[in-house]
């Protein structure tokens, strides 16, 4: 879901489209091997194969998928530092993205995700469904569920996130997919990846 560039920002449009195929290098993530993700110390061990997309939604993130990011999108945010955003800015002057704060609690993570998506996707249709405490990489963390629809298509999507604030940085893994078939088909594989997270 993170191809914001092709909808927002004049310069970004061309860059995103060009960057996707050229810099692509979509890579295979093998099953059963620990792998460091999102240019960080966060490590996961998937039990099934995934594809890692060449295009990143932001500097400290990376996206895995089975069938393309519009159908199943697992995104890692590896240690987003205070005053940084989840994604690349869409329109810094007119619609700045919310930033990670030093004072953030784990219960603030769903709100950060919601506000970032509302701006980046330009959609009013985003709802956090629920949240509960759940350990992340052995530290106190949060699990939350949400749903959203992009403004240019009538395809409701469901999402689930697991994250924590560790050493003052935000670590987060999200999974999202159309609620028809794809979410249920992929969420078990996502939960396995999130359960395997280590720092």
């Amino acid at each position, binding site marked *: 879901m993170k191809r914001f560039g092709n909808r927002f920002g*004049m*310069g970004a*449009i*061309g*860059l995103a*489209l*060009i960057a*996707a*195929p050229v810099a*692509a290098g*979509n*890579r*295979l993530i093998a099953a059963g091997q620990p792998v460091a993700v999102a240019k960080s110390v966060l490590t996961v061990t998937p039990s099934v*194969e*995934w*594809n890692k997309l060449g295009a990143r939604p932001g500097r400290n993130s990376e996206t895995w*998928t*089975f*069938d*393309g990011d*519009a*159908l199943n999108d697992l995104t890692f945010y590896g240690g987003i530092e205070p005053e940084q955003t989840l994604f690349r800015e869409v329109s810094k002057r007119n619609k700045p993205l919310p930033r990670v704060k030093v004072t953030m609690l784990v219960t603030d993570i769903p709100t950060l995700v919601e506000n970032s998506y509302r701006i980046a996707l330009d959609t009013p249709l985003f709802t956090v469904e629920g949240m509960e405490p759940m350990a992340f990489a052995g530290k106190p963390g949060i699990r939350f569920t949400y749903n959203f629809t992009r403004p240019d*298509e*009538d*395809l*409701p999507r469901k999402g689930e996130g697991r994250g924590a604030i560790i050493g003052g940085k935000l670590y987060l893994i999200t999974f999202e997919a*159309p609620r*028809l*078939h*794809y979410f249920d*088909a992929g969420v078990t594989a996502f939960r396995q990846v999130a359960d395997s997270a280590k720092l």
Partner: protein
Amino acid sequence: MRRGWNALALAAALTMAAAPLAAQEKTGNRPGFTLAPGTATIVLMRPEIQVGAQSTGGAYEPNADWTDQARENLGKALAEAQGRLGNRVVNFVEPVGQGAATAHEYRALFTTLADSVITYQFFPGNRLPTKKREDSFLWSIGPEVASLPGVQGADYALFVTTEDHYGSTGRKLLQVFAAAAVGVGVTSGMHKGYAGLIDLKTGDLVWLNADQAMGGDVRTPEGAAKRVAQLLEGFPGKPVEAAAPAPSAPAKTASR
């Protein structure tokens, strides 16, 4: 003036982005899938049709009149074509209430699926590693589609999506100006057409014809007929096609 440069920069970017699309495949077949004429019932889903204008800067502006014209013209052309597909093609009877909403959501899912096939399969340089094996063509909308009201008793569902952005006068002028003065190509208009056959037992996509540069002006009856012919080109089990030597491997249609 700044705005003008922005538009030019955008145009240049768009052109560069459009270049690799030329080498793209436009048709996919699930390996081993064949459909003999006269053996199956295919339900034709209500087509998703959108028509609008493309402004000078490239933004899309929907046009309700054009969309209505296209609906009527494409509807007639499809009705005429469906008798010649070699198998029994019935129209999807739109359910009421929740069923209608679910049907609409499935059509949106098909469009997103086709977009993904184009991005991650038809464009070889961007193909997902797990989709590269043995010419595989493994795409699905899920087996749950079998419970959609209105598809019971059918073997396959045919989904059709078209989206047309006609270049405004300003856009066309920009195209000419950019080519002549700056030497960059600007695309004017967007004409995307997807037709896909879903196996209703598994939800698997067994055949897809998807192109983002289709011909035929859908606002006219003749254009719509041309568009439908292009959408259904290579349709499995179609008598004319069946007479020709049928390719067993996934068809790789050259760019037209």
